[in-house]
């Protein structure tokens, strides 16, 4: 019971220490031409697979929790908005121990909301996903909306956590694979992220 009562006090202490440290830092205002590079690594949750035949199958019943990561470069358009490129990857195992691999390459747009020393980046990505299972490869669109929460350690370095929703349509027109086997994969990536800011 003592441990529980000590927890809020500990959190308050950490917050106060971080805040005091942050007061010593110069608040960095990003401007046009500034750039960031971030590395993300963590897990990806298989949410569900939705078929054009109206069926929906829970992802956890068919796939393991997977590993995901990405590299992202962005450049600032103004103080709040950036555009950039995100190159990601994930893998997860199916019930038959087959390996599902997806490598999305996305153009990214982010909008930053700051409350120093923290900031939230709202982001949206649209790109191409290379999806592979056994000998089958599908190259199709991917939509990746998400958000990142950062703590600005310094003017250059930020650390945080990122959540990306992966919406991966797999559309067939019936030439080799029947059109009714078109389906939409839905995943949630949750990753730790490190961001480097430079000019």
């Amino acid at each position, binding site marked *: 019971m003592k441990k529980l009562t000590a927890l809020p006090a500990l959190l308050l202490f950490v917050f106060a220490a971080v805040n005091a440290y942050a007061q010593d830092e110069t608040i960095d205002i990003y401007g046009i031409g500034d750039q960031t590079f971030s590395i993300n690594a963590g897990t990806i949750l298989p949410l569900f697979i939705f078929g054009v035949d109206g069926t929906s199958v829970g992802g956890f019943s068919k796939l393991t929790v997977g590993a995901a990561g990405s590299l992202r470069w962005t450049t600032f358009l103004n103080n709040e908005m950036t555009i950039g490129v995100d190159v990601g990857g994930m893998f997860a195992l199916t019930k038959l121990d*087959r390996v599902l691999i997806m490598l999305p390459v996305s153009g990214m747009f982010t909008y930053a909301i700051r409350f120093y020393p923290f900031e939230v980046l709202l982001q949206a990505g649209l790109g191409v996903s290379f999806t592979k299972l056994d*000998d*089958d490869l599908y190259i199709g*669109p991917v939509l990746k909306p998400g958000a990142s929460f950062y703590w600005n350690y310094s003017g250059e370095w930020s650390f945080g956590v990122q959540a990306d929703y992966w919406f991966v349509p797999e559309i067939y027109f019936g030439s080799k694979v029947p059109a009714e086997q078109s389906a939409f994969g839905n995943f949630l990536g949750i990753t730790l992220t490190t961001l480097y800011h430079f000019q």
Partner: protein
Amino acid sequence: MRRFCFLPLLLLFLVSCNQSGIGIFYSISREQPLEDATLPNAVSVSGMVKGTSKYYVCAGGLYSRDIQAELDAPWSDKVPTPSAELSLCIKLVKFGSKMYGLFTNYDATVTAIYSSGLDTVAWEEAGSFDKPIVALAASGTYLFATVREDYATYVTKRSTDGFATMTSLSLEGQYTAVTDAEDFLAETWLLSGTKLYSGTDITYAPVTGTDVPSSSGGFGGVYASASLACLFVSSAAGKVYCTQDGTTWVVSAVTDSNDEPVALFDIEEVPVLDADVILVGAKNGYYDIVFENGYTQGFSLQTPGTAEAGEFSSSDANYLNIDLRTSVVRFFFVDKASNTLFACTSGNGLWINPISGATADTLVRKWDRQ
């Protein structure tokens, strides 16, 4: 004009290089996990027999399992071989009320055929051969053993009494062992390398002529279907031949994704609902034979579990996701009493498919490992 620049980009968004013919997410959403019993998964199965209460499998050593057991029931590797020296079983067949095994030592310098009852395993040497025995096969009428007289001379012997007495056959142009045999239209049909023989006496001539089974790479298997009144022959050139009268043949071929012929192996038959489905083993899994407008008009080889294989396919779509699809299926074994199908592979173990259900809605036809 500028809007057309986006067209290639749009096409890039939808490119599929699909070998399996099934969508990736669709495949995952239909996937079912495999049961796996204790038989080693890497064995090559070269013979299978149903005994009184057990299945016996020849895969280097001998294995057994209770017939009534669950799918994942353990296999025993304690089945005795004839002797410590003759510890490798290279063929196991059933003939009459006994099973016959072709056994060898580790360097294949000693070979022998032994027989045993079907209830308990007690081996007795069957016949006396003074040359190495290289193959053992059975039709309904005869048991066949091929011995190698010298490097390029093979002699096939047949028997009706477990080789207590045997007769040497004269197979015109024989250059290798007889690997499969069937009775059809009061004749015995034998496969030996690139030759298909038929006859009733001890002298057999190869089937010749135009539009008759032929294969420079050899034949895979021969099967006589009593229900369809057809004899089927498969070849390494990816062809399946079918005849009802022994002279007129209907043929169908299968190729892989590179348009190369698929080597085919032995053929079997299993009832699915009220249809008799013919299966043919292949170097890449196996195929269902689907008849067009009745089985006398023609047929095609289709991958089980696909829409093309139809409602009477021998497997559900999970077949498309499992290792069996890429395995070398040398032959099948069917337990007709329980309608259980076994696929015997080279190097990828034994697979089981207990087919059950009286209607399309209740039909269960799923492959699992043994």
